[in-house]
């Protein structure tokens, strides 16, 4: 009798606990073994913990289910299916890379599950939103699209690389991924006409490349003044070989490994002189008190890499809270149109020393950005014009120095150090 009562009590308690814990399910889709994926996962988890500590959302606790993509496109499709059909999540937060997001996009359109992408920046997805806003209503991207990143980078090209350094031509070294193709296209189409820098050559390399000596030789033979690298996978390899080989040309561009504090260790201290475009916040980027609070919580909770979350970790932290606030206002996630309308209203302004520092909001449908003259509905709000009073710049350029320090070199309003050539290039 006692045993039966105990079992009933135990089962009831377990059932109640499960019900209470799993009222709102958040699905994480991304790589569980990359700094990028872990940044989003942990940022989302901290937001969930804080929401639950504050009483939950709509009186319900929030829980998280993870689905690993391994940064593989087909695994990404399977992961989305798992979250939608097996785990039956209410909302998905993504730390997927561009290729993977594009892979699961048809599934998102089919299931109509509200989804926030924190890393993928492909402008083509925003074009999908413009073309079919109803089907794409569940989708939000809270990183500035790659077109916005490249547009501001062109200004860096004109104001620093061309005007200050006197560079006239560039050779692009791009990895063979969707991200590599996108950034290469944007730089090729805009760098020459706007910044007045000629593209001497474009060299595409496999992401599994381990010996970059022949590639750097080819880059030198192009006669260009500097190298623009586009690297999101195994980026520390190209960086460290650039330093070890003492390639006699400046190298800048996009290097995802340089966005984390582990970069210096990953390159064995051979990472100095590398500069990279980075969405904000990044390493070397001074933080406002709220973002600093998030980093403090992060570091007290996690003692494995990445020691400081990449920008997408911040996006996940703030974005998840905004998605939940939108759900509260819309009465849940099931009415996608209502949730979309409330999500578009989300606008978090973070100040530092009394001035706007970071803004987590979204471009509205039909709202035209002045510099590019186009719309970016459901994309993170950004500002492409100095002094950046409407929002933060779409990107900053950071540079790792040869002593292992890192700082922002552009835009000047956010700069903490100056752009300089590596010692062997000077």
């Amino acid at each position, binding site marked *: 009798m006692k045993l039966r009562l105990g079992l009933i009590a135990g089962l009831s308690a377990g059932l109640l606990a499960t019900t209470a814990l799993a009222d709102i399910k958040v699905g994480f889709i991304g790589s569980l073994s990359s700094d990028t994926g872990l940044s989003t996962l942990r940022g989302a988890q901290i937001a969930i913990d804080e929401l639950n500590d504050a009483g939950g959302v709509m009186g319900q606790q929030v829980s998280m289910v993870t689905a690993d993509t391994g940064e593989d496109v087909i695994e990404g499709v399977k992961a989305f299916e798992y979250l939608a059909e*097996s785990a039956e999540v209410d909302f998905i937060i993504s730390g997927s890379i561009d*290729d993977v997001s594009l892979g699961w996009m048809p599934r998102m359109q089919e299931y109509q599950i509200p989804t926030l992408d924190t890393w993928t920046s492909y402008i083509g997805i925003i074009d999908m939103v413009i073309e079919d806003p109803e089907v794409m209503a569940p989708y939000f991207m809270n990183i500035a699209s790659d077109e916005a990143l490249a547009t501001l980078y062109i200004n860096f090209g004109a104001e620093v690389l061309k005007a200050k350094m006197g560079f006239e031509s560039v050779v692009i070294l791009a990895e063979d991924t969707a991200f590599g193709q996108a950034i290469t296209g944007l730089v090729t189409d805009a760098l020459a006409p706007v910044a007045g820098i000629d593209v001497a050559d474009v060299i595409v390399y496999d992401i599994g490349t381990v010996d970059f000596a022949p590639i750097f030789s080819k880059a030198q033979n192009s006669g260009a003044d500097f190298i623009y690298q586009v690297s999101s996978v195994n980026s520390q390899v190209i960086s460290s070989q650039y330093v070890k080989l003492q390639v006699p040309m400046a190298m800048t561009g996009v290097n995802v490994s340089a966005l984390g504090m582990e970069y210096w260790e990953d390159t064995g201290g051979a990472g100095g002189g590398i500069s990279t475009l980075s969405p904000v916040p990044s390493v070397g980027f001074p933080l406002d008190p709220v973002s600093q609070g998030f980093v403090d919580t992060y570091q007290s909770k996690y003692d494995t890499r990445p020691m400081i979350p990449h920008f997408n970790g911040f996006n996940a932290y703030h974005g998840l809270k905004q998605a939940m606030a939108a759900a509260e206002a819309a009465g849940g996630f099931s009415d996608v149109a209502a949730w979309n309308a409330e999500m578009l209203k989300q606008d978090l302004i973070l100040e530092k020393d009394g001035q706007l520092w970071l803004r987590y909001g979204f471009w509205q449908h039909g709202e035209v950005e002045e510099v590019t003259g186009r719309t970016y509905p459901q994309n993170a709000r950004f500002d492409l014009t100095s002094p950046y009073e409407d929002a933060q710049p779409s990107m900053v350029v950071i540079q790792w120095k040869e002593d292992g320090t890192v700082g922002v070199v552009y835009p000047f309003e956010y700069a903490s150090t100056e752009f300089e050539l590596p010692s062997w290039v000077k």
Partner: protein
Amino acid sequence: MPEFVERGTLRTMIQACYLAIFAMSWDVLSGRTGYISFGHPFLIGIGAYSTAILSKKFGVPPEYSIPLAIVITMFGGLVVLLPALRIKGSYFALVTLAFMELMYQLVQVIRPDLTGGTRGITGIKSLTRGAEAGYELAVTLMLGVALGLWLLMRTRFGTALWAIGMDEDSVRGSGLSTTRLKTMAFLVSALVAGLGGAYYAHYTGSLAPRALFDIDFLFTIIVAALIGGAGTIIGPMFGAFFLIFLLEWLRPILPGAERYFVYGGVALILYMYQPKGLVAIAQSLRDRVRGDNYDHRA
């Protein structure tokens, strides 16, 4: 079946059905004749890309783009891979592997406006909506392919393919044209690969060169055929379902890459225990239940 299982399970079964089609396609050529192809994703990719380009870029309805894709796969594969049939053993495997790598590079640089370059193609028209319809289509395709291959393998052609696998010189000595037989086997293999690839493209709705022309994808196909039971029809199906369900069942317990270690370990142990695969294990169990003493282990 859709009435009895959850939608998530149906999605897993759909993936398993397509993997079974790919594994059966590989097995027709490699499992029977012993010519190990490492270039199978090349054929699947031609089928997938052909229908995707025809339907997405040229507006050809899938009812025409899919048959066309199959023909293109058979033709394209024949032109490129037929010379490879003149070489044997590891050289054949390496040449076919080179074709897969070549295709990976080509789709990125030749007419990226059509292939989508490294980004691939998204928004490929879906033939079904929802898990149930997708399941019904996938299982019909898989069973149709299995039945077709089963009937084909019961003919003298099927017997000749087996014979090639055992002793090609003897087959040639008996007056049969082994080149013609291998070409036929290759065409059948390409037909099934093209069919599977084309329908798979419409199922996933997106394609990327990194997903198709990939060594992991190739090994998944081969492992499915081998641990299921190469040289049989039901073996690759067993293997495909076993692998896909193993990975999906492990997902909630081991959400990260650890599940692939388990998957690899299980596949290795199974293969070491019974190289003839799950089919032979099932037969052995059946015989034991019946009281037969025949040992199916190789």
